[in-house]
C-alpha cells in the first residue's frame, strides 16, 4: 500500500552531495513530492527533508539506497514515529471590493499573516502541515489564488530523541 512518508537525511554539507540524492531518486524511479535542504547548527552538516510516496518495500529501498551514499550519515523515516511537520507558504490572492474582508477572515482562521498589500491583492503567509496549506488554498478558492510558493516540508521527531551525528 502506498503512503506518504517524510524522510529526514543528515549529510555532509559538501558540493555535490545534494545532486547525489536527487540523482538517486531519478535513477531508481523513486518519487519526490517535496524536498528542502539547508545547513544545520553544525555548518559542516546539512539536513534534508523529503516527502515521497511509496509502498513498504519501496520506502525500505529508498532508505537503504540513501544510506549507501558515502556522504550520508543518517536517514530516518519520520512517519514511523511521532513527529512534527511544517511547511511555509506565501500566497498572493486577489482581494478586491468585498473580497478583501473575506480573504482577511479566511487568513485569520488559518492563522495566516498578511505580509504585503496592494489595491488588488494580499500576500498571505501561512505555516503548518501541508494539508493545512492545502486547506487554505481550497478555502479561498482557485480563482482567487494568483500565485503560491511553498517551502516544502520540514520535519522533526517529537520528544527527546534527536537526529544528530
Amino acid at each position: 500500500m502506498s503512503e506518504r512518508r517524510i524522510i529526514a537525511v543528515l549529510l555532509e554539507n559538501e558540493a555535490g552531495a545534494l545532486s547525489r540524492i536527487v540523482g538517486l531518486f531519478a535513477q531508481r524511479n523513486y518519487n519526490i513530492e517535496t524536498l528542502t535542504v539547508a545547513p544545520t547548527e553544525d555548518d559542516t552538516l546539512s539536513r534534508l527533508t523529503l516527502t515521497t510516496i511509496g509502498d513498504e518495500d519501496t520506502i525500505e529501498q529508498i532508505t537503504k539506497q540513501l544510506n549507501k551514499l558515502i556522504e550520508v550519515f543518517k536517514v530516518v523515516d519520520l512517519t514511523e514515529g511521532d513527529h512534527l511537520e511544517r511547511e511555509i507558504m506565501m500566497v498572493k490572492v486577489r482581494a478586491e471590493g468585498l473580497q478583501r474582508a473575506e480573504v482577511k477572515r479566511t487568513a485569520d482562521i488559518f492563522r495566516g499573516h498578511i505580509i504585503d498589500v496592494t489595491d488588488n491583492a494580499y500576500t498571505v503567509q501561512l505555516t503548518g502541515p501541508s494539508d493545512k496549506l492545502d486547506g487554505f488554498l481550497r478555502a479561498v478558492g482557485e480563482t482567487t489564488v494568483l500565485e503560491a510558493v511553498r517551502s516544502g516540508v520540514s520535519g522533526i521527531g517529537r520528544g527527546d530523541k534527536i537526529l544528530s551525528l
Partner: protein
Amino acid sequence: MAEMLSGADMLIRALQDEGVEYLFGYPGGASLHIYDAIFKQQKVEHILVRHEQAATHMADGYARATGRPGVVLVTSGPGATNAITGIATAHMDSTPIVVISGQVPNPQIGTDAFQETDMVGISRPVVKHSFLVREASQIPEVVKKAFYIATTGRPGPVVIDVPKDSTDPGVMFEYRYPREVSLRSYNPTVRGHSGQIRRAVKALLDAERPVIYTGGGVVQGNATEELGELVDKLDYPITNTLMGLGGFPGTDRRFLGMLGMHGTFEANMAMHHADMIFAVGARFDDRVTNDPAKFCPNARIVHLDVDPASISKIIRADVPIVGPADAVLREVNEVLDRSLARKPDAIDREALAAWWNRIRQWRCKHGLDHDQRHRGDSPLLPQQVVQAVYRATSGDAYVTSDVGQHQMFAAQYYKFDRPRRWINSGGLGTMGFGLPAAMGVQFAFPDATVVCITGEGSFMMNMQELSTCMQYALPIKIINLNNAALGMVKQWQDMQYGGRLSHSTYRDALPDFVDLAGSFGHTGFRAGSVKELDEVMSEVFSPEYADKLCLVDACIDPEEHVYPMAIKGGAMNDMVLERQTASP
C-alpha cells in the same frame, strides 16, 4: 621536514604510496602535467592503451584477478566519456577501480571550455563515489579516501576528477600521505549480527531440501575457503551465479553448475524445489530469478550480503544478514560446529539423501552433453572448443570472456576450481570487455596462462588493443568463437521472432582474423573441424608459443544455440532444453 611537491607529483607519489603497480591510461591536454610527473619516476608503470574504455577494463581485469584496485588515467572530455562504459561495468560487478580524469582548470569549469565535460555529473549514477579536486593541497587525502572507498564494503569504482590547475608543476605543497583515513559518514559493516547468524544456522539445519546459492560476493569477498568448509560440514548442494563461478570448485560432486537463464537443468530445478535457500554474496538478479513472483515458491530465504540494499530488494529475505561473506561464514561455521557437537543428528541425513537422489535424476535427465549430438564431420561446436581449451590448460587458466553465446558456453563448459579465474562482465554485459580484461590479468600475472574466450562481434569492439599487446608483449591466448553473427541476438530472433534475423549477421564483412593477428605481430590460427581444433590447441598452448599472443579463429556452427534457456516470465524450472524442431 615534509617534501615539497607539485600537485601532479603528489598525485603520482600518492599512487606509489598506495602500492599501485600499473596505471592504465591515455594522455591529453588536461592530463599533461600528470604525464610529466609519470615520466620522472619509475615506481608506477604506465600502460599506454589505444582506447580509454579498454583502459578501464584492463584495470577491472587486474582488480578481479588480484583483488587489488586497478587504476586508470584519462584526459578530460572525450577521454573521460570513453571511460564511462568501463566504469559502469565495474560498478555493476562491484569491482574496485580508481579512475583519475583530467579536467579543465578550476576557473574554466562551467564555461564550456575546450574538452570540458562534467565528469562527476556524467559518472554519478555508475560510481560508488567521486571527487572533484578543488584545491591541489587536497590531493593526497582525496587519493587515500578514493582507494579506501573503492576497496572496502561492497567494492566499486571511484572517480577523481583533477582540474589542470591543481596539477601545476610550478606550485609546490608539503607532501604527506595520510596513514589512515576516516570518513565519519562511511562505516561499512565488518561483522554479522550474531543473533541473525544463529537464526541462519537454524534455518540451514531445519532444511530438508536445501540449496546454497552463491555469487560474486564470495569471490570478491575472499570467502571461498569458508564456503568450502560450510559445504563440507553440511554436504548440501551448491550452485553459483555467473559472477560466482570459481567461488566453489566446479569439479566438486556437490556443485550443481551455474544457475539462471542459461544455468544447468539440475541447478534450476533444485532451486525451484528447494525448501531453504542460503544466498551468499548474490543479488537475485533477474537473469537468475526469472519472474520473481514465481521464484522458489516453497523456500525460506537466508540472505547474506555486505550491501544491505541488496537484501530484500528483489526477493524478501526471511533471515537477512548484513556483513562480509568471509567473516560471517566463519561465524556460521563456528555456530554450526557447536550445534552439531551438541546434537550430532541435527541434519536430517535421510531427507538429504532423498534430496540428492532427486538432484541426481535431474542431472541424468539433462546434463551438458552436447558430445552425443556431435557426429563425424558435422561442423565444429562452440562447446567442443571450450572443452578443448579446458583440457589444453588443465583447467588452470585465467579465462576472460565477452558477452553473448560464447560467454555462456565458456561459463558452462570451463570448470573453474578456483576463485578469480573466471572474469566476465556479468551485470552490465559489456561486449568488448574480454580482451582488455585479459590484458589486465596478464599484467598482474605475467607467467600465467590467460585465455580470452570471445565472439567475433565482441572482439571487434576493442580489437585495437592488439596493438597494446604488441607493445607490451602480452602472450594472451584469444579464442574467437566465430559464428559470423551476433549469435545471442540471432538466437533470440530464431526463438522469438520467427527467425527474422534483423541486423544480426555480417558474414561477408568480416576480416580475416588470422591475417589480422599477423598484422599486429601476433600469430593467428584457424580451426574449422574437431581435428584441426586438436592440432591448433596443442600448438597454441605449447611452450613454443608461451611468449606469444595467439589468436585462434574457431569457425563454429553458426546455428548452435545455448541451452538450457529460461522461458521468459516463468519460474526457475521453466526452461527450454533443446532446439525445438520447426513446427509444420
